[in-house]
């Protein structure tokens, strides 16, 4: 197996990405408000955290480089790394699709309302992962969000957005 497909190489790549993030997070702290005569500045704690992260990220980079140099076949880090190749792995494609669905869910939560957006997303995911029983899909995807909305709205008095299904709330209120 190529070294670039091992867990050790994946660790190296992850650590480099993390290091870039940590440097960015540290640079951000330089713009935080400075308070005169304060023993600890608002930036101090985040800076300590960034430095802590950097130290252990550098350690991870060194560990990964050393592993890649002297890797034995039976080393746990010589095993193949998990794939995030969206073009080659169907599972990753499906996971990416669920992520897109979740983002759409958050964006449409208030506009369409919890029940509708949940029913649509639940039905799409069920179909995506191979559920083919239309009756079951329809029942589960509609009844579960509806029941949860009723529990939260009526029993726990938590106001959940209903969006386009607002008339349903009015109906329940009347009952």
């Amino acid at each position, binding site marked *: 197996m190529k070294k670039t497909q091992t867990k050790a190489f994946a660790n190296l790549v992850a650590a480099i990405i993390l290091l870039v993030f940590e440097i960015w997070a540290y640079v951000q702290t330089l713009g935080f408000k400075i308070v005169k005569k304060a023993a600890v500045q608002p930036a101090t704690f985040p800076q300590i955290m960034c430095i802590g992260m950097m130290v*252990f990220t550098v350690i991870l980079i060194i560990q990964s480089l050393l592993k890649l140099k002297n890797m034995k076949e039976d080393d746990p880090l010589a095993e193949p790394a998990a794939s995030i190749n969206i073009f080659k792995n169907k599972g990753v494609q499906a996971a990416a699709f669920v992520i897109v669905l979740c983002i759409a869910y*958050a964006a449409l939560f208030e506009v369409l309302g919890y029940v509708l957006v949940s029913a649509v997303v639940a039905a799409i995911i*069920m179909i995506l992962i191979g559920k083919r029983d239309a009756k079951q899909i329809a029942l589960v995807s509609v009844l579960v969000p509806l029941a949860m909305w009723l529990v939260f709205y009526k029993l726990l008095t938590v106001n959940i957005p209903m969006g386009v299904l607002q008339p349903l709330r009015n109906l329940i209120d009347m009952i």
Partner: protein
Amino acid sequence: MNWGLLFESYGAVFFNPQVLLMTLIGATGGVLLGAIPGMTATMGVALLIPFSFGMDLIPSIGLLLGIYCGGMYGGSISAILIHAPGTPAAAATLLDGYPMCQKGQAGRALSIAMFSSFCGGVIGALIMTFLSPLVADVAMEFTSAEMLMLAVFGLSVIVAISGQSISKGLISAFFGMLLCTIGMDPTYSAKRYTFGVKPLYSGLAFIPVLIGLFAVAEIIAGVERIINGEEKQETSNEKIKEVLPDLKTIMQIWPQIISGGIIGTFIGAIPGAGGDIAVFVSYGFNKSFSKYPEKWGTGIPQGVASTESANNGCSGGAMIPLLSLGVPGDAVTAIILGAFIMKGIQPGPTMYFDKLDTVYCVFAALMLANLAMLIVGCAGVRFFAKIVSVEKKILYPIILVISLLGAFSINKNVFDVGVCVVFGIIGWLMNKYEFPLSPILLALILGPMCEQNFVRFMDLNGGNFMAITGHPIAIGFFVIAVGTVLFSIYNQQKINKREAAAKAAAKAAEGK
């Protein structure tokens, strides 16, 4: 100790039908609410307190304590079954509870959680009964220095829960601590990492991050596994004959139950520290002193017992400063304090002289609440355990829509749904590249406590950190923290060596 009055008070509580009924209703509500991701015991108590307005003091306290204890156990149900802790105090239960569920032992894990919760609660109630003035005196010695070092001690557990790579665990922990700094600085109100996004001013809410990292990440990974044909459907062939753990299991877990109960009670007694901290401290402590630390995190009963006894032990601990000093130990006891005041009773040192019968009745009510939780738990184990046998293709979408609703319900804010999704993606990626998620959780719990007390301590001492040497309890915590880290590193090396040897042996056997 007035033994006669103590027995009389226990009798008055245990043989009062109204108290019995209210405590049972409270425990049922608590278990059900706690099992919903995002609904905490605090929310449950806050929601149901209006129902106690018209009652006498003891039935209303019974109702509230029932919710409190039930909620603590209820949180473990979703942690074990769907990898989404119902409450922050159940966050560590998933470390071994969920793997047990994956092994087809969901019912066993639930019964262990329930039994350990009950025992932890009883230990807390007993310590509260006999040692409350003493424990309260020690807890009230805590200044910012002690609180800071308590947080450091809590964080030292990170090494124990980091898994194979300590560097990755510590990166996760620092990342979690960095996340805590998002929002307005608690001391000077300076904006940090807010980028002009107003909902970020108050920082990231803990529950949506928790739900995202564990539940949403698990669903994304589950969908990926199903498509790749790697997902196994748990058919729950487990036959639950007894709803309580068998004698053999009890013999295995009793040391963890006792130590967890004591740790939980002590941490619960410290104002500002609660079940969410106690569970990790108990888990780390018990793992460090285990004969086989390598098995922790793979689904062993001891892991579930150590956390569940600690979080219910906290319920007794949190009542100690409330009754003896009038200072609530956590958010739930703050609400219970309100219930006392509404009834015209001011908890505090004088209560032990003026209203000793009421104090003893509260002790008894806590004991009863734990018993009610056990009864409700026993009745529900078989039903809860069936959830895992629901087809994954149906279960995953259901968990997703319930989890995202849980994230919303905390602050009734759509922004939290977005936060939950973002952390779902982060959790999925971190799982893929074997960065442990539990240290983030611990850091999110302890980060704000650590920073606030660090700033307060430094301000009070003119920036001289060495002034901490004048605080013996703080130094004690620091020494224990250093010891825990060193011991955990030693343990992890032992685990890595054992695993390597086992792999080599397996390979040699294959070769033959």
